[in-house]
Structures are given as structure tokens and as C-alpha cells.
């Protein structure tokens, strides 16, 4: 297992290297310069400013310089926020995105698992219909629509929560609820399908015939085995919720990372584009790795060993 993890970590860095290289050259194809006052600068002034940022060098030299810095853990400094280290920019903006993302994932996943399980146990009853309806609703209502509705009713009309802005825990509740709908719907659907399958398995029948109560059968046997496909979707979904909540962040005026990424592209802020791409990729690969490792814990039969062989 340790060897497998080590190998996967090695692949992680190799993948990151390839992503960074490809992104670097693709980014250079973006039209325009990163300078906000470009239309006011004379060609001579533009030349001086470009030289200051090393943008007067051939692209390959710029690439080598960037990669050299990257190997030393230096993601460079933002052009948009003059000389602000990209790592600091990411760090500062990441916390709110991660907080609402994590809260939404925990809430959505826990509720989704319970909803799916209840629907499966009470299959073909009104409980199942209601649970399915809720999960479909969660899947089909876009998070920004839900965000606007929540803001209007819970904040603007009933004054239960702040309308927007990032002040304290209260500010995180509405965006969390808006973002939790999707994982809730997704997890509930997967959970129900898998659990219905598991509940009709022979070993469940055997467990029942041994005199176990329904509760014991569900918690000890069915629930655990139904979790494997759920875990598979949770990983990428977590990354997408934590990083892709830009619209919800905008609606609640949360200083998140998503907006920063989009802005860095529209402003040609090359170091920030690179830094965020590398960071997102790292996050996704890491989550996939964690999910793979988690499989082993949920189901010991697929635990890996001997250099990655089952």
C-alpha cells in the first residue's frame, strides 16, 4: 500500500508538470497584454514595462524561468495585483471557497446518504417518492437560482440571514445551502440505486435470516457496501463544488477563488492563471488519490498492496 501511494504521488507530480507546461504555452496564445493601461502607453513605454516583467524574452525562456521558479515552490507574482505573490493570493481567496464548499459537501453528502438510504428502505412507498422528488429537485435547480431565492426570502424578506458579504458564520449559511443542493441530489440518487441493489443481495437475505434486525442489516451490511459508488462521485464533486462556485460567490459577494480565476484570464494575469490551474489540478488529482485509498478502507477486499497489485 505504501509503495502504491508513493507511486501515485510520483505520478501526481508528473501530471502536474505536464499540465503546467501545456497551460503555459496555451496561455501565451491569449490575445492582449496584462497591462491595464495598455492603450495609454507609447510603444517605448510598453517595451520598458514588458522588460520589467520579463515578457520581452522569447516564450521558451519565459517557460524555463517559470518552471525553474515552480520547482522551488515559487508561483510568481500577480500582474493584476502588482507584486502580490500568487501563493498568497490563492491562500487569501481560498479560505471562503473552501469553507462554503466543505460545508455544502458535508451537508449535501450526509443528507443525500440518509435520503437515498431511506428511499431504498421504503422502496415504492410515498417516502421513496418524496425522497426521489427532493433529490431530483436538488439536481435540477441550478445553484444560482436557489441562491437568489434563498437570498430573497431568507435574507431580504425575512431577515434571518445577511443578504450578502462575508462577515461571519451567518454569511456562509445561505451559500452553503445553495451549493448543497447538487451533492444532496446526486448522492441521494446514487445511494438509492446502489442500496436497492444491495438490499436484494443474498448476503442481506442471509443476515436477515440470522435474526438481525432491519436496523442492524442496514447499518452493518447494506449501508457500507452501498457507499463505494457514492465515494467515487464525492471526490470530483467536492472539487467542483469548492472551486466552481463562482456564480454563488458572486451572488453573495464572497471573496472566493473562482471569480479570481476568471478575472485572471480576462486580465491576462499569467502567473495567477498558472498558479490557479496548477492548484486546481493538484486538488483534483489529490482527491482522486484519496478516493482510491478510501476504497480500501470501505471495502477491505479491494485494499491494495504488493506494489499496487490487488
Amino acid at each position, binding site marked *: 500500500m505504501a509503495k502504491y501511494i508513493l507511486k501515485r504521488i510520483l505520478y501526481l507530480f508528473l501530471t502536474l508538470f505536464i499540465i503546467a507546461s501545456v497551460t503555459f504555452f496555451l496561455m501565451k496564445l491569449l*490575445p*492582449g*497584454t*496584462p*497591462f*491595464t*493601461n*495598455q*492603450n*495609454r*502607453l*507609447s*510603444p*517605448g*513605454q510598453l517595451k*520598458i*514595462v514588458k522588460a*520589467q*516583467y520579463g515578457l520581452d524574452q522569447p516564450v521558451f525562456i519565459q517557460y524555463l524561468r517559470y518552471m525553474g521558479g515552480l520547482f522551488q515552490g515559487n508561483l510568481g*507574482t500577480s500582474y*493584476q*495585483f*502588482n*507584486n*502580490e505573490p500568487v501563493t498568497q*493570493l490563492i491562500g*487569501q*481567496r481560498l479560505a471562503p471557497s473552501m469553507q462554503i464548499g466543505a460545508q455544502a459537501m458535508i*451537508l449535501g453528502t*450526509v*443528507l443525500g446518504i*440518509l435520503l437515498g438510504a431511506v428511499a431504498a428502505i421504503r422502496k415504492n412507498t410515498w417516502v421513496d417518492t418524496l425522497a426521489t422528488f427532493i433529490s431530483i429537485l436538488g439536481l435540477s435547480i441550478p445553484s444560482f437560482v436557489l441562491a*437568489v431565492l434563498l*437570498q*430573497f426570502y431568507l*435574507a*431580504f424578506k425575512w*431577515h*434571518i*440571514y*445577511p*443578504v*450578502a*458579504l*462575508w462577515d461571519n458564520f*451567518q454569511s456562509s*449559511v445561505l451559500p*452553503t445551502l445553495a451549493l448543497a443542493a447538487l451533492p444532496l441530489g446526486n448522492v441521494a440518487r446514487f445511494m438509492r440505486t446502489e442500496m436497492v441493489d444491495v438490499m436484494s443481495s443474498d448476503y442481506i437475505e442471509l443476515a436477515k435470516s440470522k435474526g438481525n*434486525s432491519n*436496523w*442492524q442489516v442496514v447499518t452493518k451490511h447494506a449501508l457500507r457496501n452501498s457507499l463505494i459508488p457514492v465515494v467515487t462521485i464525492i471526490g470530483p464533486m467536492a472539487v467542483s463544488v469548492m472551486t466552481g462556485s463562482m456564480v454563488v460567490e*458572486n*451572488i453573495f*459577494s*464572497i*471573496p472566493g477563488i473562482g*471569480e479570481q480565476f476568471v478575472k485572471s484570464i*480576462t*486580465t*491576462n494575469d499569467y502567473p495567477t492563471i498558472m498558479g490557479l490551474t496548477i492548484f486546481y489540478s493538484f486538488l483534483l488529482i489529490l482527491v482522486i488519490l484519496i478516493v482510491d485509498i478510501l476504497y480500501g478502507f470501505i471495502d477491505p477486499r479491494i485494499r491494495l498492496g504488493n506494489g499496487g497489485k490487488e
Partner: protein
Amino acid sequence: MKKKKYLLALIPLFGIVLMLSGCGSATEKDSKTTLSISSSDVIASMDSSINTDVIGGQGLTNTMDGLYRFDGKKLKPAVANSMVEPTNDGKTYTYKLRHTKWSNGKPVTAGDFVYAWRRTVDPKTASQYAYIFSGVKNADDISAGKKPVNSLGVKALDKYTLQVQLSDPIPYFNQLMANATFFPQYKPAVEKAGKQYGLNSAGMVFNGPFKLVNWHVSDNSWTQVKNNKFWDAKSVKLKKVQYYVYKDPNTGLNLYDSNRINRLEKIGGDTARQVSGYKTFSKDKFASTFYIEMNRKKDPFFNNENIRRAISLSFNRTQLNKNVLGNTAGFTSTLIPSGMSYNPKTGVDFTKDPAIKPLASYSDYNQKLATKLWKKGLKETGQKNLSFTLLGDDTDTAKKQNEYIQGQMEKNLPGLKLTLNNVPFKSRLTKSTDGDFDMVVTAWNADYPDPYSFLQLFETGNAQNNGKYSNKKFDEYVKKSATVDANNKDARWNDLVQATKILTEDQGVVMLYQYYQANLTRPNVKNYRVSPNGMYNLVTAYKN
């Protein structure tokens, strides 16, 4: 076991209840001494040598003080103790400074101005606003790395006397002094922070009405508190100014309606239409105009006057403003915006000058005349049909605006096929500079409140003259205003008026509108006025 089952089932319910109940009321309280204002974006830098945008400019105007400060339309002495008239044929300005202090109690000296100015023009600083010093002796050569930084035409004659030498007279030089780029800097603070200067409020010192506190660059909200060391602190009634960034128009409106913010700025399009009935709705004129440039080099048929005039008359600006822009624009027939510059003798707005007023007919919607001139133009240039592309920004408003123009032009100019090319702002700039366009919708914000800031763009050979407009007479007037007539206010005014007349009659650019910033302001907010340089002076603003 049963108990456990119910307990488990209660967990999610408990979570929801906890979230719902633990919060209490979110109703906002309003304070008389705190003014909360929306901001459309974050501050990118608080370094006056580096800042290029309006948001940073406002942050600096609130927290720093230059030689002069606008109070409404009036330019008034700030750190300089009086308004200075130049000597040496308009090439020397000698400012006597007040004995004012930085927020750390140290005196603000002439040396602080010298240090800041030299730092800005130093190529090592890579300031994108260094060009604004052009005209100060040796500034261009220093920026180009040809002369040493200490050769800049600025020196401290003594602790409280600042002298500036210009290479040529700059008639609007005093107005420039209200611009953040010319503010002083406290050398020990700048040197201590090094490259991080202006990215963090910690370690910064201020000499303006407010101090920025607990701020880090890219923060979505920031606070400015009254600076008791400010020389005119007794005039400052607000104790705190709080800015909040909002991106979503509905959120902005909800924040305003729930009184979380006292002033909502930069309302656009549909939202502006929605709130234009509010009693608290207002529009501030900005020294910024939107216009269409035609690429004469790429498409020589744009050299035909009838074609240019037909284009200008073919769409209805009033309807564009009402239906697309939500009444957030102002009609202007000339490149020069209104509310920016005033006749030195009569005080009349530039756009109301007797020679300028009749030019309105060049931008008034006239369907019949447009069609007639267009047909004539096609005949003269030997064209039967014309198809070209209109380059523009890719924002929602810009797209709708360009679609409207496209529809009207194609309807009223027979044989015209207009394709839209909406691209991100930076791409639009690059394409414009490279001459990669037929027509482009562009805008210019005055660097200083003077018609020259706009007119010089269209001099033959100017780097910003993307459409390659050229008229000798126009060039002569613009040049005269900056040279032989630079020290003669009346003659200079006449030069600028005549140049504007030529550019408009030529339809060197097709005018669209002047940018008006639409806002909602609580009735208890007083004296919150925009200056001709596009900044708000919070020294005099207050709440009751």
C-alpha cells in the same frame, strides 16, 4: 437500538435547525458617522506610483492628500497653501506647502513629493502611469532610461517649498495635481515595504482625511477611519467609510434596500431601468465618452465624409440610452464630455459653447438623411454593398448596445452588412492598437479634466489614433493649444473649441454617448459629489 435510530435520523434535521435558529436577525443598523458604499471591484494597489484604476484612485483620494483637491467642481489648495500661477512662461511652478502631518505624526515635506514623483518615472518602478508626467522636465527621457532619475524637473527648495520645472507649459498642470499619481509618499514606509508597498494597509502612512485599516490587496471589503492628523480634520464629519464589493446587480440592490449600504454605485442596464423611479436615484457625469472609430487605413471608403456622416445619423442614441443602457448615459455630439471643463472667462461648460452647440445635428438620428448620404457615399466610392465588422467588448451591456447599433445601421443603410465581433476588453485593446478592425466601439476617460486629454488622441500619428484620422487644420489647433497659446487661456480655449468643431464636422469619430454613473444614495447622505476628475471628495461628505 430504536433510540439510536431516531437519534441518527435527527442529525440532518438538527443541522438545519441549528443553521436556521442560531442566527438571529440580520437587520442592519445605520450609523450617522459611518458611510457604507458599494464598489464594483477590489483595490488592486494602494501605491500611487502603480495604481491605474478608478477604485484605487478613490482609495488614494480618500487617504492621501496632494497639492490640490477638488471640492465639487472647484479645485482648492490642499497640501499647497494656495493656488499657484506659473512663472517663467508657464514653465515653473513654486508651491509653498502647509505644515501638515502624516498619520504617524511626521511632517509632510516637499521631499516627500520629490521622492514620489521620481519613483513613479523611474523605469525600475514600471509605472503604467509614468506617461502622465510627460511635460515635466526630463520625465520622458527618464522613463525611457536615457537620463538619471534625479534629473526630473522637481526639487525641494526647502522643507516646505516645492518647485517644478516643465519642459513646455502644461495649461492643465494644476488640475493634474489633484490626481493620485502626483501625491506624496513617505519614503521610510515605501522602502520598508519594498515590492509589497501598497498591497497591505499595515505599515502604510497616510496624509489624507482617512486611514485605510486592516486591508490586504484583493479584499472584498475595506474600512477607512478618520485620520485625526489630517490638516483639515475638523471639516471631516465621517468617522468611518466602509466599502463593499458587489458583483451581482440584484445583490447590490438588496444590500441597498436593506440599508446594509448607504450608496449603491455603478448601476447599469436592466437594474438601472428598474430603479430609475426611485427618489434616491441619481446620475453623476463622468469625464468619459464612448465613440466609434473607423479604420481608414484598412477600409479606405471610411475616408468618404458622406459614409461617415450616414453612419452617425443612422441610429437613435436616445432610444439606445433608454432601451439598452437604462438611461445611464448622456447625449454628447462631441468627443468632449460635459461637466468637465469650463470657459476660463465665462465659466460656461465646454459643450455649451456657442460654437459647439450647433454640432448636435451631426449626431441627431435622421433616418432619411442617413440613407441619402449613405447612397451618395456608396456612389462616390464606387461601392454597391459594404460589409464590415464592428469590434466591441463582450460585456452584456456592450453586446446589447452593439446589437442595437447593428440593427439600426443595417435597417437604415441599404446594402450594409455589419458583423459583430465582441471580445474581452484586453483583446479589444490589442486589436485596436494593431489596426485589426473595421469599426471599433471604444471609450476614453480623461486623465485630467481638460479637453486636451481627448483631442490629442486624434492628432496625426498619435499612438492612440487607431482609426488613423488625419486633418491638418485639426492638428494645428491642437498643437497651438499646447504651445503658442498654452499661456493664453482665451486663445487656448478657442483652439480647443475649433479643434472639436473640425473633428465633429469631419465625423473623425462617431460619437455614442457620455458615461453617466447611475447610483442610489440614501437621502441622509449629503455632499457626496463627484469631481471633474471622476473622484468623490469625502472631506465634505456627511450623513444626517
